């Protein structure tokens, strides 16, 4: 599973923009993934709470923590936008 971190999420994860979870247990749902991210990078917690999530380039219709995710999925953590 590939996790993309942008902007404030990357800063909170010590500058890492891509995380790969290849060893088991690969998170099985969004809740497990978010918990694992926060455990590995405690500063990510408040950022995750304000972020949108996309799986394979599509927004989750509602970011339900029970949403299943597969090992081949690409999950993007999208903090509040600041373009323009």
């Amino acid at each position, binding site marked *: 599973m590939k996790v*993309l971190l942008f902007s404030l999420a990357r800063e909170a994860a010590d500058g890492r923009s891509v995380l790969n979870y290849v060893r088991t247990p690969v998170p099985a749902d969004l809740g497990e993934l978010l918990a694992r991210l926060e455990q590995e990078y405690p500063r990510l917690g408040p950022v995750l709470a304000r972020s949108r999530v996309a799986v394979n380039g599509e927004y989750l219709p509602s970011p339900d923590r029970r949403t299943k995710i597969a090992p081949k999925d690409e999950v993007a953590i999208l903090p509040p*936008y600041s373009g323009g």
Partner: protein
Amino acid sequence: MTSRLTPNRIDPEAERRGVEGPDLGGQAVFVGVVRRDPVGETRVRALRYEAYAPLARRELDRLEKEAQARWGPLRVRIVHRVGRVPVGEASVVVAVGAPHRAQAFDACRYLIDRLKDEVPIWKSEETGPAARSGSRR
């Protein structure tokens, strides 16, 4: 679809020409430019923009479709720069050609407002000493 992300300098006039049409009597162009805002003892020297490109492109296309449905037929060009953008250069251009001025203004404003909230693009500031940039006039 005619909206895009680019690492290159944006030419607003080229985008305006892209929304010309024989039935389009009004063109509105918004140009967002990097300001040298003060940041503590320093000033912004440039902004760096990053995007989640596949989703950003789709969201730009979706916004254009929404504007078409509401004010169309329009010609629309939305161009957002990514990477380093120095003070004084355009970070974003929204150009709209419409039959009349009201649709052109309304659609242009709608598109830039929605872009800021809904398109996955982020900026970060690169700063430098205030004195040097401040003394230039």
